[in-house]
């Protein structure tokens, strides 16, 4: 049997092992032996058996003493080589300034946005990690069904008694603290009164958390009833430079508190609101609060249970024990059900599950990841740009690669060199991004969802060493994502092909990839843009919403404990005031007072939830509501005695009553058993926030529940009117400052409105970036295409092609690609925008117009990018391009 040098029947694995691991010294002998023995076995026995045996033989040859030595040990860290890579990279950037700047601009802008969001999420994620026992601190929250709710919901709170119970009954609990919110009112000291939003805390507060006191003793500061700890900022407001310790302050002219401590600083990175902390014993000392502190189902809404676990306690074990407390201590009553108490590490609160009654405002995890994925998408678009541009320019680089290979560069050298080039580009981009971030930071912090959390993003390069790590990681990961494929692609060129000048290198492998990248980029841009357009339209729609009631020239004044009639008499004296009416809750702001509507004989399940308002006799006229049937309320119709009320049209519908006229005089059941006669019917108006459908409403005359006055001011005299309201308030001699708001402004600045505006600003900004980056990429590819086909175009022109046909030729490919993007993105954008709009009861129809507008915008930008290049090429004089040949 003779085998030629090229012929072998050895399995590929065996050859690979031999090539990879066998030293050159032994290679020939071993390879020969393997070949020979394999032939022998093949002749005598089965092929599969022989293949198995030869495999074992080859593996048995993997010995240390036959191992291949590294060819040149001194290249372990070839500094000279890296210097050369850097030089080549910089030269290449310099030679292709236009391409480099397209890449760097695109990358840096998207990096800046991405980094800001990453840092913001990081800052949220590290909240409350400064506590000494941070990893052993847990919070207990509840899965609770309240009697007024149909379903159970998660609450950040838990029964007030739980904290102490856990400390006493559960082994593994080192300490526990109870924090209770609702320390509210006006904090007063020597004539200065400021609104207060503080907490009550048990003395163990300072055992659990690592907050420090500037003055006062943490061990005793929260023990006696009426103790108060303030932050330096609060102290500054009330006392200036005076020493606050031992000073007596009062809340809303009532309970007195003694300052027993001052925190050392304000800016703790914590979810616990710190501005004012009162001792929990204050609540315990008050007779009438006992039930609210002891009974589980009553105290479940406002108390936060924080626990410090011992080193060897497991959360699962504690969880089981806490759960076991529920049947023992929770007495089910009035359909209240405590489904579960859940033990949660404190570090999981921020960026965790969204739940009711959360201790501070935090970004729920899902929202944070949504933001991050948006940013990542923009970054990927920029990376795709890099890939697309580099690959499309590969023809230019192929000669360089060929020559390098001829001079002995291996493929891995070339790959490293291109990756290195990408690292240089992404490093430059990060540097630029750092500058951009300084500029974006304030804009980002001013968004209401950020400012609400109290976590302002602060980028401090001196304080925060981790920041550099983030930046370096960023450079490397971007370089890898953007640079990996081009490096592999470019290093594949063979010297022969390159030198021969194979004309369409990029057409072979790069073309399909490049086209799909363009499609992806444009689809993403289009989706963003269409969603943004629909958001902006929705926001405008809401701003100009017809609420169905008057809001112009109306100023809402909070009554606090001032009797409404007294204020009304006082303020009505002014000539600038047209009318005053009273109401319990400002409509359309999202606040509500629940009421169940049913007809006599209906079961509990058939009842429908709606809202009730307490109003006065001027309410209908002042808010310019339409009374469809029946009579208006009068002071004689005081609800508690007369049991008569106005309802809206929706109420008639849910009660199954007929038209307004025939429903007057009918009786329905409000709440559990109160029978109410319908005195009149009001035309539906937006009594709830625009996100919700108009609910069933009952308007009852209750003079003692009018918490707000709607003061209508004579048109054109708003400022004077407000002055008169202030004067009237002062004239009554109340200790509080007046609390008033212009209704129109109040509606525009409501929570939902701000959220919508934030959303479209953020998404709009990202959309703009995506479009910009995609167009930069398109510009790059188009200009390259034109450059590559200059001669072809010139010849076509010489042979009689006109400008029009040349432009058509050059842009045909892009038109097809953008067409595909449109087909891909329009359904997706439609779906996303519609899903978002479902959140709003009062919403726009997502018409063809919105989609068309987004589409048109992208097309105009895209074609101006392509057009500038193609038209330039089409108009060029062929002689200029051909005279060399």
């Amino acid at each position, binding site marked *: 049997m003779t085998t*030629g040098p090229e012929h072998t029947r050895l399995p590929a694995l065996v050859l690979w092992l031999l090539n990879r691991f066998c030293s050159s010294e032994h290679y020939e*002998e*071993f390879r020969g032996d393997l070949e020979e023995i394999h032939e022998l076995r093949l002749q005598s026995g089965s092929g599969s058996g022989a293949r198995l045996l030869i495999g074992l*033989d080859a593996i*048995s040859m993997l010995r*240390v003493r036959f191992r291949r030595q590294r060819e040149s040990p001194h290249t372990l860290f070839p500094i000279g080589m890296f210097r050369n890579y850097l030089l080549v990279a910089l030269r290449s950037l310099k030679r292709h300034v236009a391409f480099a700047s397209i890449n760097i601009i695109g990358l840096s802008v998207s990096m800046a946005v991405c980094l800001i969001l990453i840092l913001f999420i990081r800052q949220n994620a590290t909240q409350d990690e400064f506590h000494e026992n941070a990893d052993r601190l847990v919070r207990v929250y509840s899965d609770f069904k309240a009697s007024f709710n149909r379903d159970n919901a998660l609450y950040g709170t838990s029964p007030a008694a739980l904290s102490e119970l856990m400390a006493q009954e559960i082994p593994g609990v080192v300490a526990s603290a109870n924090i209770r919110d609702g320390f509210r009112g006006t904090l007063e000291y020597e004539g200065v009164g400021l609104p207060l939003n503080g907490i009550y805390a048990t003395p163990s507060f300072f055992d659990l958390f690592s907050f420090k006191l500037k003055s006062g003793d943490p061990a005793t500061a929260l023990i006696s009833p009426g103790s108060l700890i303030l932050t330096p900022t609060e102290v500054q407001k009330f006392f200036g430079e005076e020493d606050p310790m031992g000073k007596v302050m009062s809340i809303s002219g009532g309970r007195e508190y003694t300052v027993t401590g001052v925190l050392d600083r304000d800016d703790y990175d914590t979810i616990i609101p710190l501005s004012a902390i009162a001792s929990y014993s204050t609540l315990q000392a008050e007779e009438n609060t006992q039930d609210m502190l002891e009974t589980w189902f009553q105290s479940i809404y406002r108390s936060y249970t924080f626990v410090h676990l011992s080193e060897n306690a497991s959360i699962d074990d504690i969880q089981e024990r806490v759960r076991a407390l529920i049947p023992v201590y929770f007495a089910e009553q009035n359909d209240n059900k405590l489904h579960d108490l859940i033990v949660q590490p404190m570090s999981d609160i921020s960026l965790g599950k969204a739940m009711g009654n959360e201790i501070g405002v935090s970004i729920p995890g899902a929202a944070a990841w949504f933001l991050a994925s948006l940013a990542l998408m923009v970054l990927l678009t920029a990376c795709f740009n890099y890939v697309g541009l580099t690959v499309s320019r590969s023809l230019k680089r192929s000669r360089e690669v060929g020559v390098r290979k001829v001079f002995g560069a291996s493929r891995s050298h070339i790959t490293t060199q291109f990756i290195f080039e990408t690292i240089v580009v992404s490093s430059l981009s990060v540097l630029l991004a750092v500058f951009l971030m300084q500029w974006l930071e304030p804009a980002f912090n001013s968004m209401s969802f950020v400012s609400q959390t109290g976590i302002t993003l602060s980028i401090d390069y001196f304080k925060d060493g981790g920041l550099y790590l983030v930046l370096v990681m960023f450079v490397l990961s971007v370089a890898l994502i953007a640079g990996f494929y081009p490096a592999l692609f470019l290093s594949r060129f063979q010297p022969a092909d390159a030198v021969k000048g194979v004309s369409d290198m990029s057409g072979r492998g790069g073309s399909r990839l490049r086209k799909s990248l363009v499609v992806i980029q444009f689809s993403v841009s289009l989706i963003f843009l269409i969603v943004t357009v629909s958001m902006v339209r929705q926001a405008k729609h809401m701003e100009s919403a017809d609420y169905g009631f008057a809001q112009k020239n109306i100023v809402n004044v909070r009554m606090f404990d001032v009797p409404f009639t007294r204020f009304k008499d006082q303020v009505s004296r002014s000539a600038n005031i047209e009318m005053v009416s009273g109401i319990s809750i400002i409509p359309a702001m999202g606040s509500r007072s629940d009421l169940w509507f049913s007809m006599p004989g209906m079961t509990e399940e058939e009842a429908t939830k709606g809202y009730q308002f307490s109003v006065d006799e001027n309410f209908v006229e002042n808010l310019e509501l339409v009374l469809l049937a029946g009579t208006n309320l009068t002071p004689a119709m005081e609800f508690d005695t007369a049991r008569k009320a106005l309802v809206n049209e929706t109420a008639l519908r849910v009660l199954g009553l007929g038209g307004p006229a025939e429903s007057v005089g009918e009786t329905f059941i409000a709440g559990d058993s109160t029978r109410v006669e319908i005195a009149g019917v009001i035309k539906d108006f937006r009594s709830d926030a625009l996100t919700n459908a108009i609910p069933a409403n009952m308007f009852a005359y209750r003079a003692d529940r009018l918490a707000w006055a709607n003061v209508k001011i004579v048109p054109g005299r708003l400022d004077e009117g407000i002055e008169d309201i202030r004067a009237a308030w002062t004239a009554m001699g109340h200790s509080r400052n007046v609390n008033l708001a212009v209704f129109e402004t109040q509606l525009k600045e409501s929570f939902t409105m701000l959220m919508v505006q934030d959303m479209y600003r953020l998404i709009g900004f990202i959309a703009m970036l995506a479009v910009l980056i995609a167009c930069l990429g398109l510009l790059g590819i188009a200009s390259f295409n034109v450059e590559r086909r200059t001669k072809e175009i010139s010849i076509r022109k010489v042979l009689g092609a006109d400008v029009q046909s040349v432009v058509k030729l050059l842009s045909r490919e892009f038109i097809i690609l953008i067409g595909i993007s449109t087909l891909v993105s329009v359904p997706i954008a439609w779906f996303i925008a519609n899903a978002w709009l479902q959140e709003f009861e009062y919403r726009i129809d997502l018409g063809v117009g919105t989609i068309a507008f987004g589409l048109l915008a992208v097309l105009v930008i895209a074609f101006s990018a392509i057009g500038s290049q193609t038209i330039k090429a089409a108009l060029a004089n062929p002689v200029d391009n051909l005279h060399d040949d």
Partner: protein
Amino acid sequence: MGVRISLIKKAEMDQLGTLEELILLTVCSLGEDAYGVSVHQKLGEHTGRPLTLGAVHTTLYRLQDKGFVDSTMGGATNTRGGRRKRYFRATGSGIAALRSSRDVRKSFWKTIPAMDSAVALR
């Protein structure tokens, strides 16, 4: 080439392991034609228990380290893809080691007459 660290301890340098002895015997019996594959095949025939080729090579090189064999590359071949073979040949000390091993065994056999004659009878 760097310094190759010998994996064989000094004390073992003149010892002959069982496998080494068998392979050295095979090399001797093959005379001029002892190389990897032939040693592998012959040993397989005699013991009925084939080794892996790697084990054969390792042992041959260890014998060479100990000075019991030496080797030369042969000329180009017609078979095995034209690749050359490395031929091994027992050295004087190799043959001496085999002899002394045989003598040790023989002297032991003589101390067990019953077993020795039983073998002789068969």
